[in-house]
């Protein structure tokens, strides 16, 4: 007896391919975390080996902000209830250029000092730091005619945008000093 030869044109069924791929996809979705790296950046001052030589700083070049352990705010010696208007004050202070007697001489010399207490909540610290950074970013953005949002989106890896970024900061370093907390 002869056995009839089967059709040679058989194809592998690929219908279940999608299911397999979905399974793998779901595994990776569950097992992985995307790295989240957005945040407020800051550069800490270098470690001083010896007692620092006390370079007297002119009072007018220093914008003092303090937060105590009750999260109360003290701005330039005045108690504050909230952060309203702080951004504008910092901007005025930095861009004063010697006009007002009690504000900074030049943007280069202007320093914003943020002092906390050991009992201050991290949240309050970040809140104030955010305002300070916002003030500087607004200055930078205005320098090159962008909005703050556009400014923050500048990509440093792009040479043209990097040039713009450097131009915006010219002569206005972000002098935010985080003083060591008091007990």
């Amino acid at each position, binding site marked *: 007896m002869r056995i009839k030869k089967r059709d040679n044109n058989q194809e592998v069924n690929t219908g279940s391919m999608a299911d397999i791929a979905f399974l793998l*996809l779901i595994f*990776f979705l569950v097992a992985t975390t995307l790295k989240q790296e957005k945040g*407020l*950046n800051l550069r800490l001052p270098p470690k001083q080996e010896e007692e620092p030589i006390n370079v007297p700083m002119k009072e007018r070049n220093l914008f003092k902000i303090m937060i105590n352990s009750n999260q109360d705010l003290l701005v330039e010696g005045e108690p504050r209830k909230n952060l309203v208007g702080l951004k504008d004050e910092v901007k005025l202070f930095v861009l004063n250029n010697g006009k007002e007697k009690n504000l900074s001489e030049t943007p280069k010399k202007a320093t914003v000092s943020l002092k906390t*207490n050991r009992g201050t909540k*991290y949240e309050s610290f970040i809140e104030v730091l955010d305002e300070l950074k916002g003030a500087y970013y607004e200055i930078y953005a205005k320098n090159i005619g962008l909005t703050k949002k556009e400014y923050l989106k500048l990509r*440093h890896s792009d040479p043209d945008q990097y040039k713009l970024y450097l131009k915006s900061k010219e002569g206005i370093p972000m002098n935010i000093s985080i003083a060591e907390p008091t007990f």
Partner: protein
Amino acid sequence: MGKFRKTELGETKISTSSLPDIVFLLLFFFMVSATIKTQDELVDYQVPNAEHLTKPEKKFLIKELTVGFPKSDLLGKVPRISDGQRFIQVDDIPQWAAKAREELPENYKDQMIVLLKADLDINMGLVADIQEKLREVNARKILYRSTEEPK
């Protein structure tokens, strides 16, 4: 009056032959963009909200430190520092920083960014201690992890 004649159409099927390709594309995206979680977080933390966030251009420079409250109740309610694998003490931070720096390529060793994921409820005392230690080993670029306020 003419009657509308129902045209009989054969059953139309959407071809699903490209579905595996689409799914594979998604799969590869996730495989490339994600890092595999090796261990569960040791501490609970909720990062504070902020508006003016920046994103470092070179992601590989980032080394993470987490500060928060231990997940396990047995470990108490005092904020602890975790490097992702184990709890570390404030005094261990210089060693941790040196080790983290080792992993970077030679020409980027001085550019390490420490990403501090801290709970919004911890005290500045602890944060200051960490910063003090980081300054000691010259790891001075710090990034306070925070999220944009939900609108």
